[in-house]
């Protein structure tokens, strides 16, 4: 894998990010309503509003506003949120671990269940488990995420009382190390917080992981069926190589490569749908913060959340791209 490729990929990433910032900035500027007026409330006088507009630079031409915005962005400043009255970057930093934990947990669920299910469906093609996984896949991608969340709440929280209804933790959170409660409670050996946060994450993570799980299952199945027909598989089967070794060491390795390419896309999908899931489960992450700021026309916060989501999505795709090139020996070893 060449340095040249990595550099080219990074420069492309920076260009796209710049593009996103322009797109979102101009979009947020069309927001009806005057941010200064919204901050001060209806009682403020015209002069007070004018003063604040001047202070925020809202009276300058829009390209100068964008330039100022970009300059602040480079220094990690996103402006003050109209709701929390703090710098948006501080708000985001505080809420980001919650979303990261949710999305990573859901992705892990989707992968560790999706892969074996896909392998089994391929090995038992057109048998019960294959039909089951096919129907499950169609169901998984067709269900409205927010509705699934509500139904899970209804069954597992209200009726069966197995899991808590909303939130991230009931008791004291574990000592702050990474901000990911599950990881932190393991690191500090805090058993109570571990069980507490785990029981909170199960329902939202299940809601978020169902559709990616279905897609991974189908993709692994399709690729495993292809691998089953390959010459190397037939030869090693005839040669009496242990079946499990064959399946998991050789075939799955090849089948997984194509799954890797869609994992980036699935991450984007999850980030988007986190906006629904966090709303349903009152999960204190950036997505719920985003929804609130959108509903209350908090201009700086909307820009901040969208940029962060875009940045996260691009970064994941970048890593997946590098990983793909590293794992594929045909690309890695090419000089």
């Amino acid at each position, binding site marked *: 894998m060449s340095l040249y490729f990595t550099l080219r990929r990074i420069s492309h990433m920076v*260009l*796209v990010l710049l*593009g*996103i910032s322009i*797109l*979102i900035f101009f*979009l*947020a500027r*069309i*927001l*009806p309503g005057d941010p200064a007026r919204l901050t001060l409330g209806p009682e403020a006088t015209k002069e007070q509003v004018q003063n604040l507009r001047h202070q925020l630079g809202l009276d300058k031409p829009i390209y100068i506003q964008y330039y100022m915005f970009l300059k602040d962005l480079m220094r990690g400043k996103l402006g003050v949120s109209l709701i929390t009255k703090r710098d948006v970057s501080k708000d985001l930093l505080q809420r980001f671990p919650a979303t990261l934990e949710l999305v990573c947990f859901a992705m892990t669920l989707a992968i560790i269940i999706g892969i074996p299910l896909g392998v089994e469906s391929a090995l038992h093609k057109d048998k019960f488990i294959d039909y089951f996984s*096919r129907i499950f896949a*169609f*169901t998984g*991608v*067709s*269900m*409205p*995420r*927010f*509705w699934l969340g*509500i*139904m899970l*709440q*209804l069954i597992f929280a*209200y*009726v069966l009382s197995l899991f808590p209804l909303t939130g991230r933790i009931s008791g004291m959170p574990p000592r702050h190390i990474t901000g990911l409660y599950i990881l932190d409670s393991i690191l500090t050996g805090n058993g109570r917080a571990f069980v507490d946060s785990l029981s909170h994450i199960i329902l939202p993570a299940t809601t978020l992981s169902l559709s990616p799980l279905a897609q991974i299952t189908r993709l692994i199945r399709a690729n495993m069926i292809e691998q089953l027909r390959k010459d190397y598989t037939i030869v090693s089967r005839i040669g009496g190589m242990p079946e499990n070794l064959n399946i998991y060491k050789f075939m799955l390795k090849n089948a997984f490569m194509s799954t890797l390419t869609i994992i980036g896309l699935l991450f*984007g*999908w999850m*980030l*988007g*749908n986190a*906006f*629904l899931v966090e*709303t*349903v489960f009152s999960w204190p992450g950036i997505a719920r913060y*985003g*929804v609130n700021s*959108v*509903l209350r*026309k908090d201009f700086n916060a*909307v820009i901040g*959340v*969208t940029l962060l*989501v*875009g940045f996260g*999505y*691009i970064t994941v*795709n970048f890593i997946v791209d590098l990983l793909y090139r590293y794992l594929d020996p045909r690309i890695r070893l090419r000089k």
Partner: protein
Amino acid sequence: MKNLSQTKNVHKGNISRALYRFTKSPLSLIGLSLVLMMVFIAIFAPFIAPYPEDAKNAVHFKDMFQPPSLKHPFGTDEVGRDVLSRVIFGSRISLMLGVIVLSIAVLIGVPLGLLAGYFGGIVETIIMRLTDIFLSIPSLVLALAVSAALGPNLRNSMIAISFSWWPWYARLAYGETLKIKEEEFVEADESLGVSRIYIALREILPNMTSSLIVKVSLDLGYAILTGASLGFLGLGAQPPTPEWGTLISLGRTHLPGMWWLSTFPGLAIFVTVLGFNLLGDGLRDFFDVEVE
């Protein structure tokens, strides 16, 4: 030119075989029936709904919060309106949203993709970079930001979803154009001096229709899902419009007691989206095309 007629003939033979395959696949047929059923319900909503007046602002306080019964199979809401009637009328909104969003997305995306793919050069660079930028924000997030900027209502949510959807069609049309451009009949046209616009519109565009049909049928379900999601977040249709997502969001405040308020509109979304997914999957086999 000879080549073109040849491919057409081969295609004809394939159609009857593909049609046979389609009718032999139970899931595709289920999908088709679900979609036809929803379209039928949407068109004849005023005749099917038991209480058509409940789709709007009707109030029957003595019937409020009735659980499902024979009189009200889906129960009644906080002002005594029949939930079944509201769900039936909701199908009109969701289907219309899906059709309008995808029409806009196709009308913007396909010409841009065709332009980029066929003419190349600086046009290609600009269009495809722009597509990249749009695609690097998850579509739901972009739609959320746009509909917030425009103000929350049904029309704006349709604009917002289209705004985040066209890049997929630009990318599809671009990829197809690059493929078709290499075909011999296009090269033949070019060597005969046929105008580029004629080639783009009469040779390349018709040859991507099957991919487009499959993509649109798969996307209709997802567009409806996105519309309902915006409605759920309060950024789409506003009450008393009986939009499915909005109904779920309102019903959620009455959980767990009035479970029917959220459950049935959600089932309606699920059935509709499932129908389009099954149909789209069947059409993909029918046309034998690869669509992401």
